[in-house]
Protein backbone atom coordinates (compact mmCIF):
# COMPACT_ATOMS: atom_id res chain seq x y z
CA UNK A 1 0.00 0.00 0.00
CA UNK A 2 1.21 3.50 -0.81
CA UNK A 3 2.63 5.45 2.08
CA UNK A 4 0.23 8.32 1.38
CA UNK A 5 -2.69 5.91 1.75
CA UNK A 6 -1.39 4.62 5.05
CA UNK A 7 -1.00 8.17 6.35
CA UNK A 8 -4.57 8.91 5.33
CA UNK A 9 -5.82 5.71 6.98
CA UNK A 10 -3.91 6.55 10.16
CA UNK A 11 -5.31 10.06 10.17
CA UNK A 12 -8.88 8.77 9.86
CA UNK A 13 -8.21 6.11 12.50
CA UNK A 14 -6.96 8.68 15.01
CA UNK A 15 -9.88 10.96 14.17
CA UNK A 16 -12.31 8.15 15.03
CA UNK A 17 -10.51 7.58 18.34
CA UNK A 18 -10.49 11.30 19.16
CA UNK A 19 -14.25 11.35 18.53
CA UNK A 20 -14.67 8.47 20.99
CA UNK A 21 -15.78 6.05 18.30
CA UNK A 22 -14.99 2.40 18.96
CA UNK A 23 -12.71 0.37 16.72
CA UNK A 24 -14.19 -3.00 15.75
CA UNK A 25 -12.30 -6.14 14.64
CA UNK A 26 -12.56 -5.67 10.91
CA UNK A 27 -11.82 -1.93 10.86
CA UNK A 28 -8.46 -0.76 9.58
CA UNK A 29 -6.00 -0.18 12.43
CA UNK A 30 -2.26 0.55 12.60
CA UNK A 31 -0.09 -2.53 13.16
CA UNK A 32 1.23 -1.10 16.41
CA UNK A 33 -2.27 -0.59 17.75
CA UNK A 34 -3.05 -4.22 16.97
CA UNK A 35 0.20 -5.49 18.51
CA UNK A 36 -0.20 -3.35 21.62
CA UNK A 37 -3.71 -4.65 22.15
CA UNK A 38 -2.73 -8.26 21.57
CA UNK A 39 0.09 -7.89 24.09
CA UNK A 40 -2.09 -6.17 26.68
CA UNK A 41 -5.19 -8.36 26.30
CA UNK A 42 -3.25 -11.60 26.26
CA UNK A 43 -1.30 -10.57 29.39
CA UNK A 44 -4.62 -9.75 30.96
CA UNK A 45 -6.03 -13.16 29.94
CA UNK A 46 -2.96 -14.95 31.31
CA UNK A 47 -3.34 -13.06 34.60
CA UNK A 48 -6.91 -14.27 34.98
CA UNK A 49 -5.89 -17.86 34.29
CA UNK A 50 -2.74 -17.88 36.46
CA UNK A 51 -4.72 -15.97 39.09
CA UNK A 52 -6.79 -19.09 39.68
CA UNK A 53 -3.78 -20.94 41.08
CA UNK A 54 -3.06 -19.09 44.34
CA UNK A 55 -6.75 -19.25 45.25
CA UNK A 56 -7.31 -22.78 44.00
CA UNK A 57 -4.73 -23.67 46.63
CA UNK A 58 -7.31 -22.96 49.36
CA UNK A 59 -10.55 -24.40 47.95
CA UNK A 60 -10.21 -27.70 49.79
CA UNK A 61 -9.26 -25.92 53.01
CA UNK A 62 -11.90 -23.18 53.11
CA UNK A 63 -13.12 -22.86 56.72
CA UNK A 64 -16.78 -23.60 55.97
CA UNK A 65 -19.17 -24.50 53.18
CA UNK A 66 -20.25 -20.91 52.51
CA UNK A 67 -16.68 -19.75 52.06
CA UNK A 68 -15.92 -22.77 49.91
CA UNK A 69 -18.89 -22.18 47.58
CA UNK A 70 -17.91 -18.51 47.27
CA UNK A 71 -14.26 -19.30 46.54
CA UNK A 72 -15.25 -21.87 43.92
CA UNK A 73 -17.54 -19.35 42.24
CA UNK A 74 -14.80 -16.73 42.27
CA UNK A 75 -12.20 -19.05 40.76
CA UNK A 76 -14.71 -20.14 38.12
CA UNK A 77 -15.29 -16.48 37.27
CA UNK A 78 -11.55 -15.98 36.75
CA UNK A 79 -11.56 -18.87 34.26
CA UNK A 80 -14.48 -17.21 32.47
CA UNK A 81 -12.68 -13.87 32.39
CA UNK A 82 -9.63 -15.53 30.85
CA UNK A 83 -11.86 -17.02 28.16
CA UNK A 84 -13.56 -13.70 27.29
CA UNK A 85 -10.12 -12.15 26.94
CA UNK A 86 -8.57 -14.93 24.83
CA UNK A 87 -11.58 -14.55 22.52
CA UNK A 88 -10.90 -10.81 22.32
CA UNK A 89 -7.27 -11.48 21.25
CA UNK A 90 -8.59 -13.79 18.54
CA UNK A 91 -10.67 -10.97 17.04
CA UNK A 92 -7.33 -9.20 16.45
CA UNK A 93 -5.99 -12.16 14.53
CA UNK A 94 -3.94 -13.68 17.35
CA UNK A 95 -3.80 -17.46 17.38
CA UNK A 96 -5.29 -18.78 20.61
CA UNK A 97 -3.10 -21.85 20.87
CA UNK A 98 0.06 -19.83 20.21
CA UNK A 99 -1.01 -17.21 22.73
CA UNK A 100 -1.39 -19.86 25.42
CA UNK A 101 1.89 -21.53 24.45
CA UNK A 102 3.64 -18.16 24.86
CA UNK A 103 2.55 -18.19 28.50
CA UNK A 104 3.86 -21.71 28.93
CA UNK A 105 7.23 -20.98 27.31
CA UNK A 106 7.72 -17.94 29.53
CA UNK A 107 7.65 -15.57 26.55
CA UNK A 108 4.43 -13.88 27.70
CA UNK A 109 4.00 -12.05 30.98
CA UNK A 110 1.14 -12.00 33.48
CA UNK A 111 0.46 -9.95 36.57
CA UNK A 112 3.36 -10.36 39.00
CA UNK A 113 1.07 -10.45 42.01
CA UNK A 114 0.30 -14.10 41.31
CA UNK A 115 3.93 -15.02 41.82
CA UNK A 116 3.52 -14.57 45.56
CA UNK A 117 2.48 -17.60 47.63
CA UNK A 118 -0.81 -17.84 49.56
CA UNK A 119 0.32 -18.92 53.00
CA UNK A 120 -2.82 -18.63 55.10
CA UNK A 121 -6.60 -18.43 54.76
CA UNK A 122 -6.37 -14.68 55.34
CA UNK A 123 -4.60 -14.45 51.98
CA UNK A 124 -7.94 -15.30 50.34
CA UNK A 125 -9.34 -12.25 52.08
CA UNK A 126 -6.53 -9.89 51.20
CA UNK A 127 -6.43 -11.05 47.57
CA UNK A 128 -10.13 -10.35 47.09
CA UNK A 129 -9.90 -7.03 48.87
CA UNK A 130 -6.64 -5.64 47.44
CA UNK A 131 -5.75 -7.66 44.36
CA UNK A 132 -9.27 -7.71 42.95
CA UNK A 133 -9.67 -4.15 44.19
CA UNK A 134 -6.62 -3.05 42.21
CA UNK A 135 -7.77 -5.06 39.21
CA UNK A 136 -11.18 -3.38 39.28
CA UNK A 137 -9.55 0.02 39.52
CA UNK A 138 -7.56 -0.84 36.39
CA UNK A 139 -10.50 -2.38 34.57
CA UNK A 140 -13.21 0.21 35.14
CA UNK A 141 -11.51 2.75 32.84
CA UNK A 142 -10.89 -0.07 30.35
CA UNK A 143 -14.67 -0.39 29.88
CA UNK A 144 -14.21 2.82 27.82
CA UNK A 145 -11.22 1.46 25.90
CA UNK A 146 -11.25 2.28 22.17
CA UNK A 147 -11.26 -1.36 21.06
CA UNK A 148 -14.85 -2.65 21.12
CA UNK A 149 -14.39 -6.34 22.00
CA UNK A 150 -11.96 -5.49 24.84
CA UNK A 151 -14.27 -2.81 26.23
CA UNK A 152 -17.25 -5.18 26.13
CA UNK A 153 -15.30 -7.94 27.85
CA UNK A 154 -14.31 -5.45 30.56
CA UNK A 155 -17.93 -4.51 31.20
CA UNK A 156 -18.76 -8.15 31.92
CA UNK A 157 -15.61 -8.65 33.99
CA UNK A 158 -16.21 -5.56 36.13
CA UNK A 159 -19.80 -6.54 36.82
CA UNK A 160 -18.71 -9.97 37.97
CA UNK A 161 -15.70 -8.86 39.98
CA UNK A 162 -17.50 -6.51 42.30
CA UNK A 163 -18.47 -9.51 44.42
CA UNK A 164 -14.88 -10.71 44.44
CA UNK A 165 -13.71 -7.63 46.27
CA UNK A 166 -16.60 -7.64 48.73
CA UNK A 167 -16.15 -11.28 49.69
CA UNK A 168 -12.45 -10.61 50.31
CA UNK A 169 -13.16 -7.65 52.53
CA UNK A 170 -15.76 -9.70 54.38
CA UNK A 171 -13.15 -12.37 55.12
CA UNK A 172 -10.73 -9.72 56.41
CA UNK A 173 -13.43 -8.10 58.53
CA UNK A 174 -14.43 -11.44 60.05
CA UNK A 175 -10.84 -12.31 60.91
CA UNK A 176 -10.15 -8.82 62.27
CA UNK A 177 -13.13 -9.18 64.61
CA UNK A 178 -12.07 -12.69 65.65
CA UNK A 179 -9.53 -14.02 68.14
CA UNK A 180 -6.16 -12.24 68.51
CA UNK A 181 -4.62 -15.03 66.43
CA UNK A 182 -7.16 -14.49 63.66
CA UNK A 183 -6.59 -10.75 63.68
CA UNK A 184 -2.82 -11.29 63.56
CA UNK A 185 -3.34 -13.58 60.57
CA UNK A 186 -5.28 -10.85 58.75
CA UNK A 187 -2.61 -8.25 59.57
CA UNK A 188 0.15 -10.59 58.37
CA UNK A 189 -1.66 -11.12 55.05
CA UNK A 190 -2.05 -7.36 54.62
CA UNK A 191 1.64 -6.85 55.42
CA UNK A 192 2.68 -9.30 52.73
CA UNK A 193 0.26 -8.20 50.00
CA UNK A 194 0.13 -4.40 50.43
CA UNK A 195 3.24 -3.50 48.44
CA UNK A 196 2.82 -6.13 45.70
CA UNK A 197 -0.77 -4.83 45.27
CA UNK A 198 0.50 -1.28 44.68
CA UNK A 199 3.03 -2.68 42.21
CA UNK A 200 0.12 -4.11 40.19
CA UNK A 201 -0.38 -0.70 38.57
CA UNK A 202 3.04 -0.97 36.94
CA UNK A 203 6.09 1.30 36.92
CA UNK A 204 5.93 5.02 37.69
CA UNK A 205 4.60 7.14 34.84
CA UNK A 206 8.07 8.49 34.08
CA UNK A 207 9.35 4.93 33.53
CA UNK A 208 6.30 3.53 31.77
CA UNK A 209 7.27 3.10 28.12
CA UNK A 210 3.84 2.42 26.64
CA UNK A 211 1.70 4.91 28.54
CA UNK A 212 1.83 7.94 26.20
CA UNK A 213 0.94 6.05 23.03
CA UNK A 214 -1.68 3.92 24.79
CA UNK A 215 -3.34 7.04 26.17
CA UNK A 216 -3.41 8.64 22.69
CA UNK A 217 -5.07 5.49 21.36
CA UNK A 218 -7.43 5.38 24.34
CA UNK A 219 -6.35 1.83 25.09
CA UNK A 220 -5.39 3.19 28.47
CA UNK A 221 -7.53 5.91 30.06
CA UNK A 222 -5.60 6.71 33.25
CA UNK A 223 -1.89 6.58 34.07
CA UNK A 224 -0.31 4.05 36.44
CA UNK A 225 0.37 6.64 39.14
CA UNK A 226 -3.13 8.12 38.97
CA UNK A 227 -4.67 4.71 39.52
CA UNK A 228 -2.19 3.84 42.29
CA UNK A 229 -3.03 7.04 44.13
CA UNK A 230 -6.76 6.26 43.86
CA UNK A 231 -6.11 2.78 45.22
CA UNK A 232 -4.25 4.10 48.26
CA UNK A 233 -6.86 6.80 48.97
CA UNK A 234 -9.74 4.35 48.81
CA UNK A 235 -8.08 1.53 50.72
CA UNK A 236 -6.62 3.33 53.74
CA UNK A 237 -10.02 4.12 55.33
CA UNK A 238 -11.21 0.57 54.60
CA UNK A 239 -8.26 -0.80 56.58
CA UNK A 240 -8.84 1.65 59.42
CA UNK A 241 -12.50 0.68 59.66
CA UNK A 242 -11.65 -2.93 60.49
CA UNK A 243 -8.69 -2.05 62.69
CA UNK A 244 -5.86 -3.16 60.43
CA UNK A 245 -2.68 -1.17 59.84
CA UNK A 246 -1.24 -0.38 56.40
CA UNK A 247 2.43 -1.46 56.57
CA UNK A 248 3.85 1.88 55.48
CA UNK A 249 5.48 4.21 58.05
CA UNK A 250 5.50 7.04 55.50
CA UNK A 251 1.77 6.94 54.90
CA UNK A 252 0.34 10.36 55.69
CA UNK A 253 -2.73 12.39 54.72
CA UNK A 254 -1.80 15.32 52.51
CA UNK A 255 -4.37 18.04 52.99
CA UNK A 256 -3.18 20.02 49.98
CA UNK A 257 -3.57 17.26 47.41
CA UNK A 258 -6.54 15.73 49.28
CA UNK A 259 -4.88 12.35 49.13
CA UNK A 260 -2.34 10.20 50.96
CA UNK A 261 1.40 10.44 50.54
CA UNK A 262 2.89 6.97 50.64
CA UNK A 263 6.32 5.40 50.87
CA UNK A 264 8.68 4.44 48.07
CA UNK A 265 7.88 1.19 46.27
CA UNK A 266 10.70 -1.33 46.08
CA UNK A 267 11.09 -1.32 42.30
CA UNK A 268 14.03 -3.75 42.43
CA UNK A 269 11.66 -6.34 43.85
CA UNK A 270 9.07 -5.49 41.18
CA UNK A 271 11.50 -5.95 38.28
CA UNK A 272 12.98 -9.06 39.81
CA UNK A 273 9.54 -10.70 39.96
CA UNK A 274 8.63 -9.49 36.45
CA UNK A 275 11.86 -11.04 35.16
CA UNK A 276 10.86 -14.40 36.60
CA UNK A 277 12.60 -14.46 39.98
CA UNK A 278 9.58 -14.15 42.24
CA UNK A 279 8.83 -16.79 44.86
CA UNK A 280 6.38 -18.75 42.65
CA UNK A 281 7.06 -17.88 38.99
CA UNK A 282 8.29 -21.33 38.09
CA UNK A 283 5.59 -23.12 40.06
CA UNK A 284 2.80 -21.13 38.37
CA UNK A 285 3.97 -21.71 34.81
CA UNK A 286 4.71 -25.38 35.54
CA UNK A 287 1.18 -25.79 36.89
CA UNK A 288 -0.33 -24.28 33.71
CA UNK A 289 1.84 -26.42 31.48
CA UNK A 290 0.94 -29.54 33.41
CA UNK A 291 -2.77 -28.65 33.23
CA UNK A 292 -2.53 -28.45 29.44
CA UNK A 293 -0.63 -31.75 29.18
CA UNK A 294 -2.92 -33.58 31.57
CA UNK A 295 -6.00 -32.34 29.73
CA UNK A 296 -4.74 -33.58 26.38
CA UNK A 297 -6.62 -36.87 26.58
CA UNK A 298 -9.88 -35.05 27.37
CA UNK A 299 -9.51 -32.85 24.31
CA UNK A 300 -8.65 -35.88 22.20
CA UNK A 301 -11.72 -37.73 23.45
CA UNK A 302 -13.92 -34.71 22.76
CA UNK A 303 -12.57 -34.54 19.21
CA UNK A 304 -13.12 -38.25 18.66
CA UNK A 305 -16.67 -37.97 19.98
CA UNK A 306 -17.40 -34.96 17.76
CA UNK A 307 -16.03 -36.79 14.70
CA UNK A 308 -18.10 -39.87 15.50
CA UNK A 309 -21.30 -37.85 15.90
CA UNK A 310 -20.62 -36.14 12.59
CA UNK A 311 -20.20 -39.51 10.83
CA UNK A 312 -23.40 -40.81 12.39
CA UNK A 313 -25.31 -37.79 11.16
CA UNK A 314 -23.85 -38.13 7.67
CA UNK A 315 -24.81 -41.80 7.29
Amino acid sequence: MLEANINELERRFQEKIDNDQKIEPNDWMPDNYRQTLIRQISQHAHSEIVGMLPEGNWITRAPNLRRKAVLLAKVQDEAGHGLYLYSATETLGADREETIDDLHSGKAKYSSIFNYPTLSWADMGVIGWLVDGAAIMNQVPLCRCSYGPYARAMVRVCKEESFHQRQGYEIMMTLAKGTPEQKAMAQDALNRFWWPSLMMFGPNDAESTHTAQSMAWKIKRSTNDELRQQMVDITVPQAELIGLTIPDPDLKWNEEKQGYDYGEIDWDEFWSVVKGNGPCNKERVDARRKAKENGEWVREAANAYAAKQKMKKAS
Partner: protein
Amino acid sequence: MGARSGKCICGEAKNEKSILIKKDFSKMANNEWPLWEVFIRSKQGLSHKHVGSLRAPDAEMAVENARDVYTRRSEGISIWVVESNNIHASHPSEADSLFEPAHSKVYRHPTFYDVPDGISHM
Protein backbone atom coordinates in the same frame (compact mmCIF):
# COMPACT_ATOMS: atom_id res chain seq x y z
CA MET B 1 3.16 -12.63 20.56
CA GLY B 2 1.24 -15.09 18.46
CA ALA B 3 0.16 -12.36 16.11
CA ARG B 4 0.53 -12.15 12.40
CA SER B 5 1.04 -8.88 10.60
CA GLY B 6 -2.10 -6.84 10.49
CA LYS B 7 -1.71 -6.29 6.75
CA CYS B 8 -4.03 -9.02 5.61
CA ILE B 9 -6.94 -7.44 7.37
CA CYS B 10 -7.19 -4.11 5.63
CA GLY B 11 -9.59 -4.26 2.76
CA GLU B 12 -9.08 -7.96 2.07
CA ALA B 13 -11.11 -9.76 4.63
CA LYS B 14 -14.54 -10.19 3.20
CA ASN B 15 -16.18 -11.04 6.44
CA GLU B 16 -15.56 -10.55 10.08
CA LYS B 17 -13.78 -13.83 10.69
CA SER B 18 -12.18 -14.65 7.40
CA ILE B 19 -8.60 -14.25 8.60
CA LEU B 20 -9.39 -16.68 11.37
CA ILE B 21 -10.89 -19.16 8.98
CA LYS B 22 -7.70 -19.22 6.94
CA LYS B 23 -5.77 -19.94 10.09
CA ASP B 24 -8.24 -22.60 11.20
CA PHE B 25 -7.55 -24.79 8.20
CA SER B 26 -3.87 -24.96 8.98
CA LYS B 27 -4.66 -25.51 12.64
CA MET B 28 -7.10 -28.36 12.11
CA ALA B 29 -4.14 -30.70 11.93
CA ASN B 30 -3.34 -29.65 15.49
CA ASN B 31 -6.92 -30.40 16.50
CA GLU B 32 -7.71 -26.82 17.42
CA TRP B 33 -11.42 -26.63 18.01
CA PRO B 34 -13.61 -24.50 15.77
CA LEU B 35 -14.67 -21.06 16.89
CA TRP B 36 -18.34 -20.48 17.77
CA GLU B 37 -20.24 -17.23 18.14
CA VAL B 38 -22.61 -17.24 21.11
CA PHE B 39 -26.04 -15.59 21.17
CA ILE B 40 -28.17 -15.40 24.30
CA ARG B 41 -31.87 -14.71 24.75
CA SER B 42 -32.04 -12.97 28.11
CA LYS B 43 -35.79 -13.45 28.56
CA GLN B 44 -38.96 -14.51 26.74
CA GLY B 45 -39.98 -11.82 24.29
CA LEU B 46 -36.46 -10.57 23.51
CA SER B 47 -34.29 -11.64 20.60
CA HIS B 48 -31.00 -13.50 20.95
CA LYS B 49 -28.08 -11.13 21.22
CA HIS B 50 -24.40 -11.71 20.44
CA VAL B 51 -22.36 -11.98 23.65
CA GLY B 52 -18.99 -13.33 22.53
CA SER B 53 -17.30 -16.42 21.21
CA LEU B 54 -15.65 -19.61 22.38
CA ARG B 55 -14.00 -22.74 21.07
CA ALA B 56 -15.57 -26.20 21.25
CA PRO B 57 -15.26 -29.45 19.29
CA ASP B 58 -18.94 -29.59 18.30
CA ALA B 59 -22.23 -27.72 18.61
CA GLU B 60 -23.45 -29.66 21.63
CA MET B 61 -20.32 -28.93 23.63
CA ALA B 62 -20.35 -25.33 22.39
CA VAL B 63 -23.81 -24.92 23.96
CA GLU B 64 -22.65 -26.52 27.21
CA ASN B 65 -19.54 -24.33 27.35
CA ALA B 66 -21.59 -21.24 26.51
CA ARG B 67 -23.80 -22.05 29.49
CA ASP B 68 -20.75 -22.02 31.78
CA VAL B 69 -18.96 -19.06 30.21
CA TYR B 70 -21.81 -16.67 29.45
CA THR B 71 -24.76 -17.49 31.77
CA ARG B 72 -23.28 -17.97 35.24
CA ARG B 73 -25.58 -15.26 36.61
CA SER B 74 -28.90 -16.12 35.00
CA GLU B 75 -28.17 -13.96 31.95
CA GLY B 76 -30.14 -16.21 29.65
CA ILE B 77 -32.95 -18.66 29.02
CA SER B 78 -31.85 -19.76 25.57
CA ILE B 79 -28.53 -20.11 23.74
CA TRP B 80 -27.67 -20.14 20.05
CA VAL B 81 -24.21 -21.09 18.86
CA VAL B 82 -23.13 -20.55 15.27
CA GLU B 83 -19.80 -21.67 13.88
CA SER B 84 -17.95 -18.44 13.19
CA ASN B 85 -17.03 -19.35 9.63
CA ASN B 86 -20.74 -19.54 8.81
CA ILE B 87 -21.14 -15.85 9.54
CA HIS B 88 -21.01 -13.57 6.54
CA ALA B 89 -20.68 -9.90 7.28
CA SER B 90 -20.63 -6.62 5.41
CA HIS B 91 -17.22 -5.02 5.22
CA PRO B 92 -16.41 -1.68 6.90
CA SER B 93 -15.03 -0.29 3.61
CA GLU B 94 -18.46 -0.86 2.03
CA ALA B 95 -20.29 0.87 4.85
CA ASP B 96 -20.69 4.14 2.95
CA SER B 97 -22.24 2.67 -0.14
CA LEU B 98 -24.43 0.35 1.92
CA PHE B 99 -25.78 2.75 4.49
CA GLU B 100 -25.36 6.23 3.05
CA PRO B 101 -28.54 6.04 0.90
CA ALA B 102 -30.65 5.86 4.06
CA HIS B 103 -29.14 9.04 5.51
CA SER B 104 -30.74 11.33 2.92
CA LYS B 105 -34.24 9.89 3.34
CA VAL B 106 -35.28 11.76 6.43
CA TYR B 107 -38.91 11.65 5.24
CA ARG B 108 -38.97 8.06 6.47
CA HIS B 109 -39.15 9.39 10.02
CA PRO B 110 -42.29 10.86 11.57
CA THR B 111 -40.40 13.91 12.83
CA PHE B 112 -39.98 15.06 9.18
CA TYR B 113 -43.63 16.16 9.00
CA ASP B 114 -45.25 19.39 10.21
CA VAL B 115 -48.31 18.83 12.32
CA PRO B 116 -50.31 21.77 13.75
CA ASP B 117 -50.31 22.33 17.52
CA GLY B 118 -53.22 20.78 19.33
CA ILE B 119 -53.34 17.64 17.21
CA SER B 120 -53.11 14.52 19.33
CA HIS B 121 -53.10 10.77 18.70
CA MET B 122 -50.79 11.13 15.72
